[in-house]
């Protein structure tokens, strides 16, 4: 597989399938792992980073998921657009591409597995699946982790667990998260209360593109905060219990909109649909907001004849690097807005 092949396929996690897929876009579990005594990336010199990479690379390349039609890429060999493309597809973080030397990423063929090397930790293993599937993510990632651990001397203490660069990840080194679409809670102005409750229960709420981003288009990424003192299963059980409640709140809010505020709801949904279908210049922020409304219309059975996968895919395809990669050239902001509108019109006619 090459980076260009990515563009021809829809990321597995955008398929719009899986449990609770009318609310949950995707589920993700990531593990932070380090090699004993090797210097952590932020404190390492370039030669030290290279030598850590030299230890990890052959082992990661041999992982079945990567060996079979996967991709292994050194960041210094990627163009800026390619790097941004991988960020937009949620395969790597912005932090990984901030520097060049000794950084690499491995991705499997359906993009459900990615392993970043020398990001904040020596390894960041991620499994990303569509719908609410944290348990499945865990089973898959545990399996990969076990195979890596047999060949690498992973930093671990019986008392403190996995030793990570940042003490907020010590212990399981695990962050489990789900990307939720909560438009009805936002429209009915209940979202602040729900977010506050979630935070009080020890979870973290972030925006569409992870750490440090704002919640746009009614998307909320919810993850565990604590990684020490609880087993991986306990952490996932805890998130699952809390999120099941959130799903219920969102469903109730959707019913309220349908029964008490129907014309307003229909107006928002169809207005968004109309603009997306007809606009000739559109920004990425507006696109995400409108797509969110269209998705709500689809999930509530108002809009028919569109696939959820098409809507999901548009969230990613309309991002700057994707547009430029599709056009195979650099585009100005204005050119992107024009190209974006054109792409949307083609996809949802």
């Amino acid at each position: 597989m090459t980076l260009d092949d990515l563009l021809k396929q829809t990321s597995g996690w955008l398929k719009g399938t899986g449990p609770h897929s009318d609310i949950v876009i995707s589920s993700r579990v990531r593990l932070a792992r380090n090699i004993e005594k090797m210097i952590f990336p932020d404190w390492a010199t370039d030669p030290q980073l290279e030598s850590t990479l030299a230890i990890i690379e052959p082992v990661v390349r041999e992982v079945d998921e990567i060996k079979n039609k996967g991709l292994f890429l050194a960041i210094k060999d990627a163009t800026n657009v390619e790097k941004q493309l991988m960020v937009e597809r949620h395969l790597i973080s912005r932090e990984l591409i901030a520097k060049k030397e000794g950084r690499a990423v491995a991705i499997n063929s359906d993009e459900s597995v990615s392993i970043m090397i020398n990001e904040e930790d020596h390894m960041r293993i991620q499994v990303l699946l569509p719908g609410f599937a944290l348990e499945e993510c865990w089973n898959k990632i545990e399996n990969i982790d076990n195979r890596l651990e047999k060949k690498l001397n992973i930093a671990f203490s019986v008392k403190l667990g996995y030793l990570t660069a940042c003490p907020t990840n010590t212990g399981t080194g695990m962050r489990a998260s789900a990307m939720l679409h909560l438009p009805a809670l936002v429209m009915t102005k209940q979202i602040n209360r729900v977010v506050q409750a979630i935070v009080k229960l020890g979870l973290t709420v972030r925006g569409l593109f992870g750490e440090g981003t704002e919640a746009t288009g009614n998307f909320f990424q919810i993850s565990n905060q604590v990684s020490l003192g609880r087993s991986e299963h306990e952490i996932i059980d805890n998130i699952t219990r809390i999120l099941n409640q959130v799903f219920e709140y969102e469903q109730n809010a959707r019913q309220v909109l349908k029964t008490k505020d129907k014309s307003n709801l229909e107006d928002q949904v169809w207005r968004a649909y109309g603009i997306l279908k007809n606009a000739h210049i559109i920004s990425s922020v507006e696109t995400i907001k409108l797509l969110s409304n269209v998705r709500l219309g689809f999930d509530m059975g108002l809009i028919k004849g569109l696939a959820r996968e098409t809507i999901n895919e548009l969230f990613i395809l309309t991002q700057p690097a994707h547009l430029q990669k599709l056009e195979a050239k650099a585009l100005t902001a204005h050119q992107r807005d024009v190209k974006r509108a054109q792409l949307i019109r083609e996809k949802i006619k």
Partner: protein
Amino acid sequence: MKCQLCGKPATVHLTEIINDQMTELHLCEACAKKKGIAGMGQPFGLQDLLAGLVDFGAPAASGNTKVLKCENCKMTYDDFRKIGRLGCSQCYETFKESLVPLLKKVHGSLQHLGKGPQRDDEGFQVKKKLQNLHLKLQKAIQNEAFEEAAKLRDKIKKLEKES
């Protein structure tokens, strides 16, 4: 209110609650910028908050930590306070005195209960077994199950002698 770093008037105020523990930061514009907290429109990550926690909330280098330098990676505790990330796995041992309270503050616990590497070497397995027994012993004492506690204590003694 004065900046907690330099004493100039504080204009940036940040409150962070982790595990019911509230930490407050009061900084002047310049120091906030240095910490990466200035201009709240700018996204800032957990790292910055953590660096804040290390600096003000929790361990201001207790005991010997202040002068300690990790033999393996040459990081000092001061370096860690500045960047909010450790230098290598050995730092956990080097800065134990200050790190333990910090970990307790962040996670509310100090005992890993998740999976571990499936290593075959015997020493590791024994260590793991001992940890588990200690944990059970603590619980038994808490529950005032003294008979069980006595049994566990014997087991631990035996295992320690053997290894």
